[in-house]
């Protein structure tokens, strides 16, 4: 075995890179070793950029661990693979070459993992091999003799099950001992990686290429069927949106009661004055209005996480590949678009896995039309206020149906925009979808719970941070200058925010928005859900009640017409009310023209669609 001596005292500066095929468990191993909580899921292409973390070896030495996007070879096809290859080859401008490469092999996909290992050996970097998912391979009938494979490869090898922490401690010990890190001699330059991989497998007594998961094949025969599979996909989505309304009422009532109780307590214990107004009309009315939607967000993400963990999502991409092809996109666009249902920003970043730049550009342009979770509080508020909670069929709630329709409207709009772009720019060649389908497995409750906790943490951090801060500023702008004695109307109308709202209302009057909505849309540009807290604050300062945080829905139902409510719903389907998304588009595409075009077309569509909705409902209701 070829070994290389490395000064232990310099370990603190050492960088160790995790390299492997997509979906082989690198990020799970990274999380396990560094204690961080990077996003992991049961499909390829989740990690699209370099992640850094610090880990301790068994002897307590500090090492910088790099989690690289998955790649099948050192000849990159897409931008995420290029990131990995540049770092490994030492060609990255941001990251020096790693001191050690930990090649993560997937025991259930050994041949293609060994192909990459063969390429890595040629670089001459010190190598340690991790054989991950040995449990899945064993349960599928493939027994790997770890000792024999280690001898055949001539490299230190650790067997792991990253999701269960198995093998993490032996790996820490190996990282502690640079004497066993092997810098392999370069094999002959014309060695075919596949031939090398096969010869390693045969030498290790592994004649079976990949284990066959019978259950996955049986499920796929139904779930990938063009007719049954599509029906099951639509039914699943439909059921999820029904559950968002049907299952959230009790916890939402509990949060509302908590907010109302706190407002009551403050109202009784604080003297009349600025502080009381700030805490009740500003903070509680604003933040409380958003907080009540946490249960619905968690229910939605529970289902998304379960589908992610089970391995179903890439099947959905495959099902939609034909439809995507008809609008000039490949199924590769599906995962970024799916990520956009959580938040457009990771969705836009995930487009780095799309090799065709034209496809990538179109996918980025339509990503904000996917309904992100920040829209859910706005939708839930308006649906709760204007759509009656009635059954329209056995087990079918009208409110859930409307929510489903709003999500579908975003998808249909995205298809329409992609089609228009294809017609304008000409149809490019449609890339064939090559996607690895992971085996199905039961979602691990601990992973689902962690995913929900992360989602709740992000939401609560936003509520306690940006939403609270903007609410405080909006309260100030809505309270000053104070109205003089004898002022006719609510004091907020005299304030700076009230005056700004009345100016903006001229622009929004044709689509039915009043000045209160116009005021809420401005801070709502920072994040969509801020509009709900802003409406809470504005109406708290416009009314005498102290319980707006818990009762914003009934107040807007009484003050707005149905046409206005539906017009605002449609506005939120299209409007790019998120500056962070536009900034990310600028960062990803490198030109301001792209976010400018996106803002213009989305605001244009929002205004046109809201105008049509407002006029149609007015016409229908008179």
């Amino acid at each position, binding site marked *: 075995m070829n070994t290389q001596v490395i000064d232990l005292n310099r370990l603190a500066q050492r960088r160790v890179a995790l390299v492997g095929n997509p979906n082989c468990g690198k990020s799970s191993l990274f999380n396990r070793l560094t204690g961080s909580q990077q996003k992991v899921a049961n499909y390829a292409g989740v990690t699209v950029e370099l992640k850094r973390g610090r880990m301790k070896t068994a002897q307590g030495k500090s090492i910088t661990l790099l989690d690289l996007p998955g790649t099948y070879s050192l000849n990159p096809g897409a931008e995420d693979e290029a990131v990995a290859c540049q770092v490994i080859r030492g060609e990255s401008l941001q990251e020096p070459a790693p001191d050690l490469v930990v090649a993560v092999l997937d025991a259930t996909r050994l041949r293609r993992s060994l192909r990459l290992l063969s390429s890595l050996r040629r670089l001459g970097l010190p190598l340690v091999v991790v054989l991950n998912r040995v449990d899945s391979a064993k349960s599928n009938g493939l027994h790997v003799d770890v000792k024999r494979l280690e001898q055949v490869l001539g490299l230190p090898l650790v067997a792991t099950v990253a999701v269960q922490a198995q093998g993490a401690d032996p790996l820490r010990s190996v990282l502690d001992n640079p004497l066993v890190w092997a810098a392999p001699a370069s094999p002959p330059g014309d060695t075919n990686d596949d031939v090398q991989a096969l010869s390693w497998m045969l030498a290790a007594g592994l004649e079976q290429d990949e284990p066959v998961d019978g259950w996955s094949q049986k499920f796929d025969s139904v779930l990938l069927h063009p007719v049954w599979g599509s029906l099951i996909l639509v039914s699943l989505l439909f059921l999820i949106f029904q559950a968002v309304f049907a299952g959230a009422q009790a916890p939402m009532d509990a949060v509302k009661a908590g907010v109302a109780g706190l407002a009551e307590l403050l109202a009784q214990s604080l003297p009349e004055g600025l502080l009381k107004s700030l805490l009740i009309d500003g903070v509680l009315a604003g933040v409380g209005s958003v907080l009540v939607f946490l249960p619905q967000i968690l229910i939605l993400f529970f289902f998304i996480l379960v589908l992610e963990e089970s391995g179903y999502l890439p099947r959905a991409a495959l099902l939609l590949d034909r439809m995507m092809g008809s609008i000039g996109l490949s199924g590769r666009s599906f995962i970024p678009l799916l990520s956009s249902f959580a938040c457009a920003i990771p969705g836009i970043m995930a487009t780095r896995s799309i090799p065709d730049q034209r496809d990538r550009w179109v996918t980025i342009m339509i990503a904000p039309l996917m309904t992100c979770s920040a829209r859910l509080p706005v939708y839930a508020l308006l649906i709760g206020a204007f759509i009656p909670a009635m059954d329209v069929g056995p087990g079918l709630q009208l409110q859930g149906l409307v929510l489903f329709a709003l999500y579908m409207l975003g998808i249909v709009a995205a298809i329409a925009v992609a089609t228009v772009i294809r017609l304008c720019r000409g149809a490019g060649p449609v890339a064939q979808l090559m996607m690895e389908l992971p085996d199905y497995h039961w979602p691990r409750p601990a992973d689902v719970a962690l995913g929900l906790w992360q989602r709740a943490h992000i939401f609560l951090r936003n509520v306690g941070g*940006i939403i609270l801060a903007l609410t405080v500023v909006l309260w100030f702008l809505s309270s000053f200058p104070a109205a003089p004695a004898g002022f006719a109307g609510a004091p907020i109308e005299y304030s700076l925010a009230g005056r700004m709202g009345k100016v903006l209302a001229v622009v929004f009057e044709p689509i039915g928005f009043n000045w209160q909505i116009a005021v809420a849309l401005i801070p709502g540009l920072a994040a969509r859900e801020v509009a709900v807290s802003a409406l809470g604050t504005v109406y708290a300062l416009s009314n005498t009640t102290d319980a707006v945080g818990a009762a914003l829905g009934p107040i807007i139902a009484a003050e707005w017409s149905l046409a206005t409510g539906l017009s605002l719903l449609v506005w939120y389907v299209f409007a790019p009310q998120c500056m962070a998304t536009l900034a*990310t588009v600028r960062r990803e595409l490198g030109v301001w023209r792209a976010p400018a075009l996106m803002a213009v077309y989305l605001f244009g569509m929002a205004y046109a669609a809201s105008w049509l909705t407002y006029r149609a409902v007015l016409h229908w209701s008179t």
Partner: protein
Amino acid sequence: MPWFDIVAVTVILAWACAFLWRRWGARKAHADHCGHCNNANCGK
């Protein structure tokens, strides 16, 4: 108007403005959002 009201409201307002200013700076620095920061140990 009680002095305590003025002090408390001023402090809260100053915090809100400082928060928004810092956040704007952080966004310009590395556009982190929804926990998507390059550095896994930065705590964001």
